[in-house]
């Protein structure tokens, strides 16, 4: 118990600008939410470009979307949702002070996150082999509008790429959390880092929840 109390004393040491731990936690949480707003707007520019071009060049976008593998996309969505589930369990474990559970759930989340990135890498690799990467060698079967088809894939790579970059950052944060929780830094009184990392992780999940139907599922019923 002495060990625990020591850790508590260390982590509860308030940063000097704050009066109470409550204030510090509130500020950190609010800061993360405000940061997430900036992320919404950051992805927002891409969502706007996507919406405009999908509207103007709908048939080509539908064709290009159909060339993606919806099953893999759906599986990857499920993987990410599972990781959100394990993340929320990790947050819960830190709320109730179960250090071992916290570590296990963080590891699970990390594994699922890496799995998502692995599947993503496999998909991108496929695009390179199918000449679906924008550039001089780009070619999509079945349309004369190569430029517009290329637009779809430009947006596909920009959006999934930026999302993957956020996943990568998320995995880094998870690793850091893992080290900290291994050292027993988190207690029910001080678990703000776990909490706000959770917010970030779920947010990245939400972005994918929209990317999946928008990129993979346009006009699937045509069965192309």
């Amino acid at each position, binding site marked *: 118990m002495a060990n625990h109390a020591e850790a508590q004393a260390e982590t509860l040491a308030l940063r000097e600008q704050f009066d109470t731990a409550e204030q510090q936690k509130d500020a950190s949480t609010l800061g993360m939410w405000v*940061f997430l707003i900036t992320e919404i707007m950051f992805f927002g*520019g891409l969502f706007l470009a996507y919406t405009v071009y999908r509207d103007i060049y709908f048939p080509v976008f539908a064709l290009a979307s159909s060339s993606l593998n919806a099953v893999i996309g759906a599986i990857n969505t499920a993987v990410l949702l599972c990781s959100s589930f394990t993340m929320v369990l990790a947050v819960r474990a830190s709320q109730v002070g179960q250090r071992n559970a916290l570590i296990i759930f963080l590891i699970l989340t990390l594994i699922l996150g890496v799995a998502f990135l692995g599947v993503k890498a496999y998909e991108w690799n496929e695009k390179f082999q199918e000449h679906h990467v924008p550039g001089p060698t780009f070619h999509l079967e079945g349309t004369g509008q190569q430029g517009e088809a290329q637009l779809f894939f430009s947006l596909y790579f920009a959006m999934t790429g930026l999302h993957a970059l956020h996943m990568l950052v998320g995995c880094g944060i998870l690793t850091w959390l893992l080290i900290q929780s291994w050292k027993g830094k988190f207690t029910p009184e001080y678990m703000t880092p776990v909490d706000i990392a959770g917010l970030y992780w779920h947010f990245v999940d939400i972005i994918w929840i929209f990317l999946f139907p928008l990129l993979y599922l346009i006009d699937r019923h045509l069965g192309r």
Partner: protein
Amino acid sequence: MITAAAQERETYLNASYGIKSWLLTKDHKRIALLYLFTVTLFFFIGGAFATLIRIELLTPQGGLVSSETYNKLFTMHGVTMIFFFLIPSIPATLGNFFLPMMIGARDLAFPRINLLSWYLLVIGGLFALFAMLAGGVDTGWTFYTPYSTTYSNTWVIATAIGIFVAGFSSILTGLNFVVTVHRMRAPGMTWFRMPLFVWAHYATALIQILGTPVLAVTLLLVFCERVFHIGIFDPALGGDPVLFQHLFWFYSHPAVYIMVLPAMGVVNELVSTFSRKPIFGYSFVAFSSLAIAVLGFLVWGHHLFVSTQSVYAGMVFSFLSYFVAIPSAIKVFNWTATLYKGSISFATPMLYAFGFIGLFTVGGLTGLFVASLGLDVHVTDTYFVVAHFHYIMVGGAIMGYLGGLHYWWPKITGRMYPELWARLSALVIFLGFNLTFFPQFILGYLGMPRRYHTYPDEFQVLHVLSTAGASVLAVGYLMPMVYFIWSLRYGQVAGANPWGATGLEWQTASPPPVHNFDEMPVVTHEAYDYTTVLGEVEVG
């Protein structure tokens, strides 16, 4: 720099020494000074470009520099002044220093993020400086596609990276301010007891948070387009160059308010202190800042009236643009009304405040001209627009900045600036400014397009007048630089509250101690309650 009186006690300036104690500081006051140094540097770099532009435009044929060079000059002038001077100017220096003090906090909510944001500005600035030294960039600060993505052979990518990085600096400053205002107010400091400077910075921070990420992603797309030729804005591949303009102005119109709202915040403090009255219509002025921040996001399409944007969208944007005029008008009227039956002092900061109100009025009113669809068709992309936004950004933002710098100089350094020189320089700046930019309204209506290296002979007289004004203005800007540095050593030692002002920042010593207050303040009065600072008074 340290006075005999100040040596006796510890201030944020003498608490520690050495370059490391500055570069690794988490003290918002020291970070503010780092910013002050940085933005001043960029101001003079941008000013040097402006000087060359004005000298070049003395003659219609363009003999001094080549067209390539001229195009790079106005681009780098715009990029430097907007992204590396005006946007960080007031929030990151005066805001950083005084926002926590005014609400009675020891520091911002996230001091390490505050330091990080300064480093981001410096890194972004280094990218931009590298681009300038390596050969410059010639796209205009607006980076319109497809010129910037396909046709320009200059250092677009390095400049875009610089602005991208500096953008994150701005976002983090905004984030810090929002959280600080929400979570760090002293006991008793309710929202409606906050100085209006804080309200203005809160509104500014909202714009920084909501707008800047869109600029970042837009520049990212320009970057991708230039490097990978992905076609997002390339008409040859079906891309829409006007979409770029929507994305760009979604940020860059509100960005104008990032520059001018903090200056309005400063003017509130000046007008109140130097007429010794609370700002007339406090809550209207407070809410008008928020209204400007919100409405500012609904009007960006007024930059696109002749861009092949649809007529109907143009009408909506024009209509909404006039709504922004109302909160701006409310502010001007309330400042004027504050003077009524006040006790008005003509100290230098107040002269700047007068200058701000006058020039902002002209800038705002000419904004009505360019928001009117039929008139904008003629004046857009001419010197009329150039004059209009310089009235807002130089006449408005820089006047506010200089006013604030004079006002808080004794608090920051513990020394007074020389009053006579300061008044003289305020006058020189005001006159020089008007001589520089007023002729440009006429030039613009006559049809002189902006970004022209050479021009028809009949415009020369007005250009010469403008250049003459610019040289006066340059002298005006150099003067404070000199006497501020002079005052660090020779200035009169300032007391805690030389102006008899009411803000919490004046209730502590000059310069302030490391944690701002020796005893944490508890607020029991409304903002601008002068009975608290003047003991015996004659009520007028």
